[in-house]
């Protein structure tokens, strides 16, 4: 789904740089930005908006370095999202801020957040993994968009 097919709510969501979109059985995540890196960072925020009840409740306390690679940029976005899902699960953390540097089809970055707390963050939904469904990295009207459907 590209910008031209977005509804009002999704357009509103993009003002903050990230949004989720409909898929019958699962859910799509989308990040936008003036650079591809920013779109990746915002895509990650869309992910954590699913995992907790309100992403604004996540404090910036601890940083985890993330490195991943793939064979093309769309594969890299899927790998980035999957790396974050893995880290959140392994360290029992949730993240709100991100730094991404992309070189070729490799990514070095960081995820910043804190330990997950049911009382502070609530329970969202468990995301199993990022898929290639609706996955794309594109630049449109000067805006980078990174999106894919996640399996929930």
């Amino acid at each position: 789904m590209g910008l031209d097919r977005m509804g009002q709510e999704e357009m509103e969501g993009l003002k903050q740089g990230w949004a989720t979109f409909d898929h019958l059985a699962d859910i799509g995540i989308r990040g936008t930005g003036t650079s591809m890196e920013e779109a990746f960072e915002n895509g990650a925020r869309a992910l954590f908006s699913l995992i907790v009840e309100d992403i604004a409740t996540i404090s910036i306390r601890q940083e985890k370095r993330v490195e991943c690679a793939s064979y093309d940029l769309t594969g890299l976005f899927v790998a980035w999202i999957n790396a974050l899902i893995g880290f959140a699960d392994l360290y029992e953390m949730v993240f709100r801020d991100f730094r991404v540097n992309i070189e070729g089809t490799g990514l070095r970055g960081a995820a910043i957040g804190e330990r997950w707390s049911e009382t502070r963050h609530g329970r969202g939904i468990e995301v199993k993994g990022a898929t290639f469904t609706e996955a794309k990295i594109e630049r449109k009207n000067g805006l980078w968009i990174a999106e894919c459907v996640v399996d929930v």
Partner: protein
Amino acid sequence: MDTTRVKKMEECIWRIERYGDMRVPALIFADRSLLSDMDEKVFVQLRNVASLPGIVKAAMAMPDAHWGYGFPIGGVAAFDPEKDGVISVGGVGYDISCGVRCHRLGVKRQKILPRLETLIGELFRTVPAGVGSTGAIRLSEPEMDEVLRYGAQWAVERGFGTPHDLEYIEEHGWVREADPSTVSKMAKERQKKQMGTLGSGNHYLEIQYVEKVFDADVAKTLSIEKGDVVISIHCGSRALGHQIGADYLQVLGSAARRYNLPIRERELVCAPIQSPEGHDYFKAVGCGINCALANRQVIGHLAVQVAKKVVPGVNCELIYDVSHNTCKVEKHLVDGKMRRLYVHRKGATRAFGPGSKELPERYRKVGQPLFVGGTMGTYSFILIGTAKGEELAWSSACHGAGRSMSRRAALKRWKGKAVVNALRSRGVILKAASMRGAAEEAPDAYKDVERVVEATHGSGLAKKVARLRPLAVIKG
């Protein structure tokens, strides 16, 4: 779906003839109304699957088929390793070996009702559910490898259940092809705290009763009758399976390019079965299956212990445990010859017919039981595999109702608390780890499971045995 593209073969069986680069035709098992309601994407994805190298006979969609990634959910396809056949992440899914097990309690509904609130409350405290939940078991590295090698057998050796249970689990509780060295350290690390947890989404633990029996003879063989109470558990391989899916999405993605495989959608990332990547993925899937079988065995045991404590006199025997997201090597008859095939079932349940040596002696005359989950407000079904199912679809059948509404749409329409109250007014207790989860899983967000089951029965893939009505539900 535009039904003009498909040709009716017989009751509830439709065929899409080969065209373009399809190597085999596609078969859809559905009544006319399910077929009309099917997402157009099911048709596209079936065509894509039918174009994969080494596919045998047909790409198939079960009556609950809907848009998945790579394969449709409810997709079934078999590949021949001797004919350049492939193995695909899209044909298994992230939740490897997600499935359902069902225990009969050996008591009637009336006996449970006075203790139902206590029973479901105790179960909710004992079986961790929901995002971020961890279990009481902590697995060391060597022990994790044991889980991945021996599945439910590991669980039984650790005291979770009895050896008798293993007879009533597919593959007797563990697949032999699993090799823990093909699973990443990350996958194993993530799983260390998650053994014995239910997860979230559509996973559940339900106390149900047999509302209606359709086949009294088979029901007798399964030792159930009208009014009997059962506990059903729906969950999978947890973080380990998810991480295997994420890891091999990249590995097979690269492999598909390296081997120049003609795949129509990148969601179908796959590798030749006879390649190092294909071998590794198959062995890793085996580990995922064993992890799921161990997980359900642990949860089943915990549930049985609670039930025995709260309701004196229950026996809690396992009816069967079967998965619906797998790739398995099976022998099937093709054009009069027995061939060894890699059968992918993505949101489809294995359903062996009578006579299968895979089945416990007790069920061999009637076939393999399978469980079709509906919604927490309606019902689920027990079905039995048939000989016709073997001929039609490599002994496969449906697995659930399938969503009719997206999760976001469900969230907009319902509040979790209102779903809990509405169910309570219908006599169903819902314990949900997350109110968001309760809203997303609202009964009206799903299709009518009865239509799916009727089409499964009508096509001959499997036969109806009993309908189960929920009394109390745990959702993640």
